[in-house]
């Protein structure tokens, strides 16, 4: 188990390095001179030179990359060009909106998809299964931000059960915040839950056809016992992969959904920064999000080893 985890950690570090290089290259090397890009066409050469100086852009690219990376390790993201405050401060508050939203949605989606997928597989080809498959087929096709708008129309405008948006801030209390995040989380979770339920069902059906399930039945287990004790854990392996992938979609989705509900998250920050050409903020937010995705991939990989004893021996 330990060698496997170490190996995954090494691969996590390599992924992070590669990702940071890509981000640095696209944001700081591709535009040519970031300073004149940020200031726009009308800036005077003196202002550009001053900005170059204050951003340390006169150093060669490898040095700047190294400074950026060492800064990141210490939690220093640099100073925002438009807000004139450390980017870490800008990000911190907003991070605690986007991340809980993505996790909330992931939990919801998994909690809905598991039982639904298992029931559909256990009752395959029954009316229950057919209707579940129909509903999930529709769920997969619904864009989450449009679904969010429909939820607002129904629950906030017609029924007035929830407010149409906004976020009270964590100092207003956990429950108030969760309430504010509930509609956004549902909007994010249901389309993803549809995908996950379908994967769960088909993975379970595949596993139910395996020889070892037949062996279990020959021991005298009922269909249901064979499903719960033998098929389910084996069926989880492909499902875990999808859950890992879903996190990155949920995180990206969260950024979009924030617009519907006026949530002060990373999405709002990054879109404002794009309009203001604040590349430093954009760079930091993207790195943070990519870091979260890679971290979740790592967690999924380690979970594999818990589910599947074959992986615990270092090799992959």
């Amino acid at each position: 188990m330990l060698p496997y985890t170490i190996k995954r950690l090494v691969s996590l570090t390599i992924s992070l390095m590669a990702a940071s290089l890509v981000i640095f290259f696209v944001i700081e090397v591709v535009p040519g001179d970031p300073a004149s890009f940020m200031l726009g066409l009308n800036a005077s050469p003196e202002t550009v030179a001053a900005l170059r100086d204050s951003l340390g852009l006169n150093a060669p690219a490898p040095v700047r990359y190294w400074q950026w990376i060492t800064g990141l390790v210490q939690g220093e993201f640099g100073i925002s060009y438009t807000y004139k405050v450390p980017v870490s401060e800008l990000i911190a508050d907003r991070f605690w909106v986007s991340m809980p939203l993505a996790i909330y949605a992931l939990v919801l989606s998994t909690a809905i998809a598991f039982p639904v997928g298992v029931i559909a597989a256990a009752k395959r080809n029954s009316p229950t299964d057919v209707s579940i498959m129909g509903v999930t087929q529709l769920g997969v096709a619904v864009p989450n931000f449009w679904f969010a708008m429909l939820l607002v129309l129904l629950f906030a405008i017609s029924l007035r059960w929830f407010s149409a948006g906004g976020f009270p801030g964590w100092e207003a209390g956990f429950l108030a915040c969760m309430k504010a995040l509930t509609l956004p989380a549902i909007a994010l979770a249901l389309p993803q839950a549809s995908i996950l339920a379908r994967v769960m069902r088909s993975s379970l059906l595949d596993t139910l056809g395996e020889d070892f399930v037949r062996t279990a039945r020959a021991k005298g287990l009922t269909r249901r016992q064979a499903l719960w004790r033998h098929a389910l854990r084996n069926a989880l392996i492909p499902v875990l992969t999808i859950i890992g992938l879903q996190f990155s979609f949920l995180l990206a989705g969260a950024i979009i959904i924030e617009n519907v509900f006026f949530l002060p998250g990373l999405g709002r920050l990054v879109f404002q920064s794009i309009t203001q050409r604040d590349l430093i903020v954009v760079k930091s937010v993207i790195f943070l999000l990519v870091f979260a995705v890679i971290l979740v991939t790592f967690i999924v990989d380690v979970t594999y080893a818990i589910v599947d004893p074959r992986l615990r021996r270092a090799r992959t």
Partner: protein
Amino acid sequence: MALLEIEKLNLSIKGTPILRDVGLGVDSGEVLGVVGESGSGKSMTAMAIMQLLPVGTEWSGAIRLGGKALETFGEKDMCALRGNDIGMVFQEPMTALNPVQTIGDQVAETILVHSGKSRREARRIAREALNRVGLPEDRFPLSRYPHDLSGGQRQRVVIAMAIALRPKLLIADEPTTALDVTTQAQILKLLKKLVDEDGMGLILITHDLAVVADMADHIAIMKDGEVVEAGDTLTLFRKMSHPYTKSLFEASSHVPSRSPVHVPGRGKPVIEVSGVVRDYPLPRRSLFAAPGHFRAVDHVSLAIRRGENVGLVGESGCGKSTLTRAILALDPVQSGEIRLNGGVFSTHGHGPDRDMRRRVQVVFQDPYSSFNPRHRVDRLITEPFFLLDEQPDPPERRRRINEALVNVGLQPSDSQKYIHEFSGGQRQRIAIARALIIEPSLIVLDEAVSALDVSIRAQILDLLADLSDRLAISYLFISHDLSVVRAITDRVLVMKSGKVVEEGLTEDVFRNPRHPYTQELLAATPVLDEALKAREARAAANGSGASS
């Protein structure tokens, strides 16, 4: 009263009849061998007894176990019966165990679902069952996972699960087909021992007449969903009243007739393999140690003369496949040299040129994966023409396709068909045609008849013998099946752990094996005649012809 009685069992799946009027019976302490080729319905009969039938199955007739009529049993009653009164062992041990559960938990589960025993007591019984099947505690603790057990060991775990509660009846469906001969002999011995100790009835389903001749007290021969002949083993083999039984018997011990010109030791060698070594890197154990090597082929030398058939036998992992890949120049050799018709074919760092390469062709084991399903037969069998410097003109190409097809007993008109229109045996003929079309000096037959039913196998062996006589082609015949090698080859090499341990004229090696491993292999191989003779001797000693 018999332990199990089946009467007039008719079964169909979604309207397609699978079994017709099947009748069988087994007594306690007795072994019933059910023999048949693929599609004969032997496995479906077993699944009918277990009542583990696919969706859409309808059946009628009577299945009685110890007087209980299973046709009146519901699913709940059957669950109580399976694993408790009837145990079952399957063909493929590699996939029969749950990969994420320990062997202890899997064996203990049989006990837990059927009795109110505590988990601790269940694990004690599981331990006992594993000990009985030859998996002692010091090497096989309950906490081991299936993935680090070999096929034979996994099959023992499956048997332990099946016999943990000492069922009255054990069904073994081709339990040794996926295993090596020496492992097969051990598993069969184990089954026999368990039957004797517990007084179980055993239904042994197999395609191998030699196995049942050795193991079974009674035999039922099945064909196309019907029992064509059944009876006491000796009597059945003596009489063989049904023509199918007779043809099965003949095909099982078939020796193709070959002209006697094959006097080995004469003529120049077609291929000479000398001192060939093939290493595979092992996965790195740590970041700091250099990765180790596994030597799959260790200084192997062999020579095959024109028109000569040489056999290469050995169990899985002995290196025969690796050697084959080296001879086919699919993998490079690391040291040593392969010479063809006197010239260098391949050596370390050098592969064969196109002209050399076309002198060596191959026929693989699996007729179903040997052909690209999207091409027609003419394109399939002319693939080796790629090795010609000049492509034959259309009439010449046409002529050679027809000649190759006729040579292997097919029609020229078959060249426009797709591969899925052919049966397994016909596909193997097409594979031979593909090898022949470029007029090679040597054809490597890599388990080329192992996937075929015995009657088809006999036909393909005849074809191979005929071709080698007529066209003076040499064969390197690679197989795990000793009886086939004995039937078709002039000389034989025995491989173990990457080395050739014994080499000689086939008849000499089979009559007087010198190396202990060859002796072990031969002793483990079931041979029909010998099994019957031994049985007759036992019967004579007991003083009755058809005992039981």
